[in-house]
Structure formats: C-alpha cells, structure tokens
C-alpha cells in the first residue's frame, strides 16, 4: 500500500478528526444529555430533548417555517437569477467582466452589512422605500418588513442570489453558442430557442444552484436574526437562543443536529436525483 498520499493528507486529517469529527460527535452526545435550570448539563443518556423537539408543536412550526423560507428563497433565486445569468453570458467583453464582479462580488461582502442595508431600506417609517412610497401617497402605512417572513425571504434572496447566478453561469459556459444558431437555422424563434435549447441545458446548473441556495437558506443565521429578531425564529436562531440565552445546551444541540440531519438528507437526495437524471445526457 502506498503511504505517500496518507502522509501528505495527515495534517489535514488530524485537524479534521480533532476539530470536526470529535466536536460533532460530542454535539450529538450532548443532545442526549439532561439539563435543568439549577443542575446544568447532566451527562446521562436520555431521549428527553428529542422527545420535546418531536412532540412540541412549537418546534414543528419553527422547522416548517425554516424550510418554507428556504424553499421560497430557492424559488425566487432560480426564477430571477437564471435569466440574469443568461443575460450576463450574452454580454460582450468589458461589460461581462464588470457585471460579473458587480453581481458575484456581494457574495464576499459581509452578510451583516448587506442585511443592515435591507433594514435601512424597509425598516419602519424611516426606511428609504417606505418613506418614498409614503410621501408619494402610494401606501398609507409603512410596508411591514422587519420581523416578517417576507422580510427574511427578500433579504435572504438577496444574500444568496449570487450562488444561483454563479451555478447557472457555470452551466451556460459549457454551452456551445453555435447550438443556438443551429436551432435558429432550423426555424426556431427566440422563445423556442430559450425554452427548448437553452433552458434544458441550463437546468443542471439551476438545480445544483437550487441545492446550494436551499441548504444555505435553511441554515442561515445572521439575516433571520437581524430581520426576524426574537419574534420570528428559525432553526438556527432558535439553537442560538438555547445556547447563549436560555443556556439549555442539550436542547439546542438536538435542534442543531436535527437541522444537520434534515439538510444532509435533502441535499444528498437532491444531488443523487440530479446526477441520475442527467448522467446519460451530460455525464
């Protein structure tokens, strides 16, 4: 057996064993521990937290809200992001690079700063858009945004949209531009070319973008925390509260582990489906 590749991977392996696998294992174990206001964490093996998470409708509602938001965000980014990727792909040299930077760049700008922007745009009466709409007389009361699901969805869509554009863009890059011309010579109109030629080829990109956006939306923290506040909780903000406010770590660990397991199942399932669906065509 060759030892070289194992030796080369050793530092990374050690790091991941110590700082990823062990902590995750400890978190799973933690979710089975007991906890009391005064006794703190008691390292025993009980199902109390899991029972609570599965029986209390509060958690069911909260998880349902989390995935509902994630689904909406995914849909919106696909519907709006895919056309933009197509438009970008058809741009010419200086513009293409420039707008790619403009649209993908925010991916690397602090999520806190970007979410703050949405709070400034829509937050209460003084929010820019609300103020403009109010002064124009288009609305009589400020549009509710802060502490609403709509607000979270809009801000999260903004935060995660670049991932969708990126995924679709990557798929379109592999597309032979002559293929569109070929369809045109066969008599296809612009709409037919889009629907029958471009969209099916962009579909793997849209789907893989959707998987990424969904996973990130379902586990997003800063945006729902800032826009949703304490009133509108999603899985990650709930886990945060259990850990840093209530201090019921075992319960928070159960919520987190459940989120992880659900996401891993969904993402793996979706990826398998996409791969099987397109294996023959694109390989």
């Amino acid at each position: 057996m060759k030892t070289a590749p194992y030796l080369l991977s050793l530092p990374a392996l050690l790091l991941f064993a110590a700082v990823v696998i062990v902590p995750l294992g400890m978190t799973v174990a933690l979710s089975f521990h007991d906890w009391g206001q005064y006794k703190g964490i008691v390292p025993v093996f009980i199902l109390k937290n899991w029972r609570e998470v599965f029986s209390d409708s509060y958690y069911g509602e909260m998880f349902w809200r989390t995935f509902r938001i994630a689904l909406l965000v995914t849909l919106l980014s696909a519907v709006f992001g895919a056309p933009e990727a197509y438009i970008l792909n058809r741009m010419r040299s200086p513009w293409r690079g420039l707008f790619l930077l403009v649209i993908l760049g925010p991916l690397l700008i602090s999520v806190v700063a970007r979410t703050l922007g949405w709070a400034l745009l829509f937050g209460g009466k003084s929010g820019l858009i609300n103020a403009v709409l109010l002064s124009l007389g288009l609305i009589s009361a400020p549009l509710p945004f802060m502490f609403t699901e709509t607000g979270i969805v809009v801000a999260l869509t903004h935060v995660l949209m670049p991932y969708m554009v990126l995924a679709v863009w990557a798929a379109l890059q592999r597309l032979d531009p002559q293929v569109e011309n070929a369809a045109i010579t066969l008599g296809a109109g612009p709409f037919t070319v889009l629907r029958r030629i471009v969209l099916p080829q962009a579909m793997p990109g849209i789907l893989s973008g959707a998987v990424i956006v969904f996973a990130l939306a379902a586990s997003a923290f800063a945006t729902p925390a800032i826009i949703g506040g304490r009133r509108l909780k999603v899985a990650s903000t709930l886990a945060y509260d259990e850990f840093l406010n209530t201090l019921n770590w075992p319960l928070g660990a159960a919520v987190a582990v459940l989120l992880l397991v659900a996401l891993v199942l969904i993402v793996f399932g979706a990826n398998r489906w996409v791969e099987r669906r397109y294996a023959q065509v694109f390989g």
Partner: protein
Amino acid sequence: MRRNGPLALCYHALFVAFTLAPIIVVCWVAFTPEGYLSFPTTHWSLRWFHAIARYPEFISAFWRSIGLGALSSIIAVAISVPAALAIARYRFAGREAFTALFMSPLMIPNVVLGIAFLRFFTEVGLGGTFTGLVLAHIVIIFPFALRLTLASAVGLDRALEHAALSLGASEWTVMKRIILPLVLPGLVSGWALAFINSFDEVTMTVFVAAPGTETLPVRMFLYIQDNIDPLVTSVSACVIVVTVAALVALDRAYGLERLLVGRGGNDGR
C-alpha cells in the same frame, strides 16, 4: 453570439439595482450629519466615521479580524497544499472520503459547527480563546483554500517536471523554478479567498467568540441586535470598502469567475 434585447437590458438594470441597493444605502446613511438614521441629501458629514474612533471595541475587533483571517488562512493553505497533492496525484483507498471530509465544512451549517466548536472548546479549555478562534476558522475556510490549491495541483502538468528533470534540473530546482511559479497564483488566491471568508464569518464565530475575542462581524451583529444607529452604518461602510478593494484586486490578479467557479489553475489567461 446574439445580443441582449432592450427587455433583457431593462431586466439586467433592475437586477443590478436590486443587488447594489442595500449596499449603497448602507454607505449613504453612513454620511449622515444627524444623530439618527437618515438619508443625507444636502448635508454630508464624516462625523460617524470619526465616531468609530471613540468605540475601541470596534477598532480592536477589526484588528483581531485581520489577524485571525491572515493567520488562519496561512495555516489553512499550508495544510491544504500536501492534501491537494495527495488528492491530485494519487489514487488511493479513501481518496473520495477524504475529499468529502475536507469539503464538509461547506455542507455543515455554520450554526451546527459553531455549536460543536463551542461545546468542544469549553470541554478542552479553549473556550473563548484566540487559539480556539483560529482552529475554528482554519476548519471553515479550509474548503476554499483546498479548492484553489487543488485546482493548481491538478492543472500542473507532470510533463513539465519531467521535462525539467530530463534537462538536468535537481528536484529542488524543479520545485523552485517550475512548480512554485506555476502554483503560486493559486496559493495566493486561495489564501485571499480564505481570508475574505474568515473576515466575513459571523454565524459560527458568534458561538466561539467571547467578550474580548469578538471579531468585527460579531461585534457588528451584536451591536445591531441592540439597536441600529448611524455608527454601525459607518463601520459597515468601512468593511464594504475594504472588501470591495480586495475583490477588485483579486479579480485583476486571478479572475473572480475562476476563483468562484473553481476552474483549473492554468486555463489560459
């Protein structure tokens, strides 16, 4: 290639406006002369930028973020290079599993990682320490570093090394004159991408950092949780400017698309 029609360009303009609006708004409010959130139109002032100086916790958080990002990115790149060589050059049992493991921080929600780190560091006595932060950050930025070092390693044509060796170069010369110059752009970009990701990370860090080891995004996040005032917009504006500068530099040096799409290291350009 056909051009975009007017409808497409309108859509594009709206899309760009949507993308930039919140970012511009933050920078705009930062210049308000008022003591409350408002959009300056006639009077602009730097008062809230000056005000940052009076909040040492923002200043120290900023430097901590810089140090943390720089240090953890260097370590992440250093560890990722041998791992990338192993993955790129050898077919061995467990290769796929290793790759999946090293990429897993992308898959695992950062909240979950934050919780796991918090639990682990508290148990081993690293809770709230800078060392803990560094370890945690190395892990979550590792996939970004690995992706670019891997692209470099894969793009490296072994025939070049063989050619140099056949021309009489020593192993060391091959390393210095052939391999290093070829992979260096990938390594530097990997470091930069890792740095930016570390610099922006808030979700996981919020669990691991304690008062005294807060990073800038964590400080901003906690501040916003209490109240939103012009101070946090001026801080955000600074963060945005720094990130945009880094982005443009990175785009010039390596190509943003290549960086984010993660294509091979030597494809033209």
